[in-house]
């Protein structure tokens, strides 16, 4: 168990080539679970390989327990890694796979036996110890790969998309199991994934990456509620956030966004600090679950009537699509209240929850964290169900 800190880490594969990693700054405490998430090619796996020492960094420092390890070879870093392909040694039995690292580190045979049984018991793979990896199912191989990492008791665990080769049902099971495991063992962990649900559910901290740059680093809640830019907002959340490009206006001294459903118009008063926002091309972001059906009794929230174009029942929710301005907007409604296609409904949303992004740069506008009420945990839990 250890702390991990990255300071201005850079990686390039040669002069003239674009940087694979640019000024990566991260810090996690002992026992924390860090998720690196992003689309493929964003540099997350490279970053993990750099932490493991499988690739060299071209600038910056990687510190474990305040000591710079960036010059050390992988075996001296005291790090264990679980690979997407599991990378089990095919000619060795499960037991030999788990023992391999311990034998190389010259651990006493009795201690090795003890360690193997501890890990096998923990992961419930005792009955598989004498089998070869080729005789195991995907889920079993995954457990063995984890076992190999656990047996070494390293300072830090690295997981490189460990669940992505499993089928959907098993993936969800293993996700829960990994979380349980981490809660029990409390080991510092770095976990790479492109799956935003894994990112939200597993991580203590999440770093969203794109093009070798960390777009945002924070708790899952912060990333979800307070995305730093359009990319983070669009990447995290399923179904994704709705984006409505428009030009902001000022009316009666207040900043407003004008929405048009083709059937009605609505002036959405915005509560964020408005310096320089007037008359600006922005993108308005609104999560599907933040759009509600308006109650019969007026409650003062802005309301707009819109016609339902498509509905997608998912079971727990029904996704209802309407047209607002030029955009198709998804609303997440309870199945029993969701209207049919062609019907009109009155929608409303809390203006204080609306996010604004600059249309050109994609950067968030208004003050981060100020626009968001705090009681949003419910949404996170609800969202992970999907």
């Amino acid at each position, binding site marked *: 168990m250890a702390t991990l800190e990255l300071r201005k880490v850079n990686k390039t594969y040669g002069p003239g080539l674009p940087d694979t990693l640019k000024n990566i700054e991260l810090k996690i405490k002992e026992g924390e679970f860090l998720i690196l998430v992003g689309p493929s090619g964003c540099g997350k796996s490279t970053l993990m390989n750099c932490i*493991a020492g499988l690739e060299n960094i071209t600038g910056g420092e990687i510190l474990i327990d305040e000591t710079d390890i960036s010059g050390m070879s*992988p*075996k001296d870093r005291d790090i264990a*890694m679980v*690979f*997407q392909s599991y*990378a089990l040694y095919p000619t060795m039995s499960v037991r030999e796979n788990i023992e*391999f*690292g311990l034998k*190389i580190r010259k651990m006493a045979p009795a201690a090795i036996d003890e360690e193997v049984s501890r890990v096998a018991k923990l992961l419930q793979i005792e009955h598989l110890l004498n089998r070869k990896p080729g005789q195991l199912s995907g889920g079993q191989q995954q457990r063995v790969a984890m076992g190999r990492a656990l047996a070494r008791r390293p300072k830090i665990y690295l997981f490189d998309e460990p669940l992505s080769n499993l089928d959907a049902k098993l993936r969800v099971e293993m996700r829960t199991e990994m979380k349980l495991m981490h809660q029990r063992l409390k080991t510092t962990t770095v976990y790479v994934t492109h799956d935003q649900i894994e990112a939200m559910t597993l991580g203590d901290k999440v770093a969203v990456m794109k093009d070798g740059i960390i777009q945002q680093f924070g708790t899952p809640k912060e990333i979800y509620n307070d995305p730093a830019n359009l990319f983070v907002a669009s990447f995290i959340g399923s179904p994704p956030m709705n984006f409505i490009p428009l030009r902001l206006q000022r009316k009666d001294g207040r900043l407003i966004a004008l929405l048009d459903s083709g059937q009605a118009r609505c002036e959405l008063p915005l509560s964020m600090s408005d310096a320089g926002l007037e008359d600006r091309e922005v993108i308005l972001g609104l999560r599907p679950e933040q759009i509600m059906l308006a109650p019969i009794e007026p409650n003062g929230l802005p309301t707009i009537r819109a016609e339902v174009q498509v509905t997608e029942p998912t079971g727990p929710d029904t996704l209802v699509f309407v047209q607002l301005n030029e955009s198709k907007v998804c609303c997440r409604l309870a199945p029993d209240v969701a209207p049919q296609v062609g019907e009109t409904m009155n929608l409303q949303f809390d203006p204080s929850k609306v996010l604004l992004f600059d249309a050109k740069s994609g950067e968030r506008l208004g003050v981060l964290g100020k626009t968001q009420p705090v009681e949003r945990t419910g949404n996170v839990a609800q969202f992970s169900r999907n």
Partner: protein
Amino acid sequence: MTSLVGKSSISLSRIAIYAVLILVCVLYLVPLVVMLLTSFKTPEDIGTGNLLSWPAVVTAIGWVKAWDTVDGYFWNSIKITVPAVLLSTGIGALNGYVLSMWRFRGSQAFFGLLLFGCFLPFQTVLLPMSFTLGKMGLASTTTGLVFVHVVYGLAFTTLFFRNYYVSVPDALVKAARLDGAGFFTIFAKIILPMSTPIVMVCLIWQFTQIWNDFLFGVVFSSGDSQPITVALNNLVNTSTGVKEYNVDMAAAMIAGLPTLLVYVVAGKYFVRGLTAGAVKG
């Protein structure tokens, strides 16, 4: 009705297939049968009967005489082939391991150049090689021939192993490095144990190539250091005395037996190795 027609046409085509196969098989086996039959005949018998007739008297005299003549050269061939096969396979495995899993700047170009060696005709290396052997003091020795075969075989063995290892996931090496294993430990403990099929292919290929080699043998050896292929040629092509076809045939059989044996013993691995795809982790 239609099914009957269908059935009969299938069996007809079957018959045709088997007929062709048997014909090809016979054609293929005739030379071997002729050699075997002739080697057990007496010289008089060979003069009177036809090629495919059964020996009037079965005698091993040809074999005994042949063995007396090629005995030393047979062991020369063993002395050349065994070390050359083992060395070229071993170094080829190491080369393939480096070129697929420890790539360095320019390793692709290096591999490309090495591949060039596969397409070099034997004849082009004769002069430079004899120069090199002379400088090394290995001219006309079996050790020199081992060297020649190892160098010439490396292009092939490296190609075999490199292409096999390319399909082995990189993550295996990464995992082993994190487990604390070094370059040679990873090779010996993880990579080599997975390589049985390609090792077999390589061994068979190299054994056949080196054992059957004539050109290098005739150029780079003389007298007592000659391999059996050269000795066989000398025996068969003697222009003095009466032609002893039974001895010639027996000597040819002796020269050919080891490769035949290798195929019989390890042939199934050869096919398996050639068709081995990605290793399931």
